[in-house]
């Protein structure tokens, strides 16, 4: 069976073209008939493509043919590259490698080979991919930022839902960055609803002084300063000079929690200074100290996919 989804900007009509393959459904799966998701020799396999997933889709508006297929282990390198590129503007994302995809996604309990789905465009370019577990958790969902994002996301989420239904899942869920407006639109069009995640992400630095120094080293033109943690654990450094100048311009003092909140962008340095959680010595250089913290502060939004936290 080949299902072709003909997408246009204003209209999404589904055309099902029944070819040589028998229509495959949940009931037939129970009877033990082979699944088109299982791959193998496929009658309509195009040259250079892995076995079809069973859904070929064409987006006429852009003249780009988007194809859905099962992601194979040999794709993992390009999937990792796509994931890292698609999330490069976000913080908190665990960088992917070929080995990491193999472990994190393919070998995760509850994951079947058919749950790895790729959307590809012209010249077999990977435009999007997802890993859906049999319980409907989409542990990885990445869309090429330079491709037709909305179309790729629509096709991918449809394929994910299709897999989840066949696997007997009761619901699907996926994390999508709020900055991805087009992808969020695709989610809404597919009938998904947004909610805040129930659990939350908490971050701390193992060595606050070293972390601040590391962050400062990536910022431009920061004067040298001393950083003093007021409540270090015995294994942590209490004080560190940040910068390369022989003498420090000022000294910044704060407790660990304040330093973490300031650097991770959860606390305003001005407010921290006003409430004396952040102290700058000498006092007259407080404004300079606030400016330094602002430059060191992490600006990127935090994101994690479900595969990062399971």
């Amino acid at each position, binding site marked *: 069976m080949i299902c072709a989804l003909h997408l246009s900007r204003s209209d999404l009509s589904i055309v099902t073209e029944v070819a040589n393959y028998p229509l495959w459904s949940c009931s037939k799966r129970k009877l033990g008939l082979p699944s088109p998701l299982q791959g193998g020799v496929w009658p309509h396999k195009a040259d250079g493509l892995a076995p079809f997933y069973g859904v070929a889709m064409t987006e006429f508006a852009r003249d780009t043919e988007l194809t859905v297929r099962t992601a194979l282990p040999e794709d993992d390198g390009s999937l990792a590259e796509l994931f890292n590129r698609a999330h*490069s*503007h976000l*913080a*908190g994302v*665990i*960088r992917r490698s070929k080995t990491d995809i193999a*472990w*994190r996604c393919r*070998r*995760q309990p509850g994951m079947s080979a058919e749950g790895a789905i790729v959307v590809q465009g012209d010249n077999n370019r990977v435009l999007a991919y997802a890993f859906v577990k049999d*319980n*409907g958790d989409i542990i990885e969902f990445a869309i090429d930022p330079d491709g037709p994002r909305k179309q790729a996301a629509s096709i991918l989420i449809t394929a994910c*839902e299709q897999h989840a*239904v066949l696997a007997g899942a*009761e*619901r*699907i*869920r996926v*994390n*999508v*960055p*709020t*900055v991805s407006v087009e992808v969020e639109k695709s989610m809404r069009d*597919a*009938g*998904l*609803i*947004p*909610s*805040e*995640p129930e659990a*939350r*992400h*908490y*971050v*701390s630095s*193992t060595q606050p002084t070293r*972390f601040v120094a*590391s962050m400062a080293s*990536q910022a431009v033109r920061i004067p040298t300063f001393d950083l003093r943690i007021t*409540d270090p*654990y015995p*294994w942590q450094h209490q004080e560190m000079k940040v910068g390369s100048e022989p003498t420090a311009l000022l000294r910044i003092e704060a*407790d660990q*929690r304040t330093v*973490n*909140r300031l650097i*991770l*962008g*959860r*606390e305003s340095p001005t407010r921290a200074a006003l409430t004396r959680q952040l102290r700058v010595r000498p006092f007259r250089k407080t404004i300079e100290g606030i400016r330094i913290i602002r430059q060191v502060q*992490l*600006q990127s*939004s*935090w*994101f*994690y996919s479900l595969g*990062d*936290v*399971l």
Partner: protein
Amino acid sequence: MNYRQIQPTDPEASSVAAMIDRAFGYYGGPYWTWKYADTEGARSVIVIAEEDQQVVGCCHYLRVDYHLGDRGPVPALFGGDLLVEPGVRRRHISTELSLTGRQIVAEVHPEAELVALYTWRELGAHYERLLGYARVKPAFNQWSKRLTWKSQLERLKEYNKDLLLRNPDLAHVDHVLQLKLDGAPELILEVGPRGFRPVCASERPMISIVARSVKDLPTGFSVSTLVSILLALISRRLRFRGSFSAFREAYAVRGAYVNLAKTLTRE
């Protein structure tokens, strides 16, 4: 109480896996083996609390590389699966485990600059207050869609048992409830002496409840619940439609309706 690191191949590891399996259900033993004992996977650090040679608590860390947006990658640790046996709780073992665990993992992976946790709000507040963690604001939404009501309908069968005994007014009720929730298939239930039973369609008087989320359904009679219902009605997150006779019947069996909402909202 003794706190120390163990390897996945140590004999104590099986106790840890069993403890995780008992506590976390679906995310139990197989997950533990995959996450912390897979030699080809991420590098893990397992820290245990033991008393009288018995493992009574554990916490885990994975060595990962976090990408920090415009600041590039940093070596980091992802902590998780912190657990203390129910019999020894309320002795601050989890706090000690967190502190000692962080010290041990910082020695094992001195290059790591960050340590991250993913946990519930209540536990997270504890980490913020006592251990200096900062909660990062998520810049994403979790999108979800219910594909079927199968398990809820199974639970409903149980709920329907003896329902008439608990709600005698159901004997005089005969209408249909249509439940339309965003991100879920429509659910139509007949309401009568046999309880709430799924039907395809019906000509009987109908109540239609349209809600944004299953969380907007009324699940009690407390003041706070009534206020949240009122707010949901004003903001149009919750809407009721239907015939007057059906509403009158539903009011007579409101207790059964509220418990129905609880049954449907339970995951």
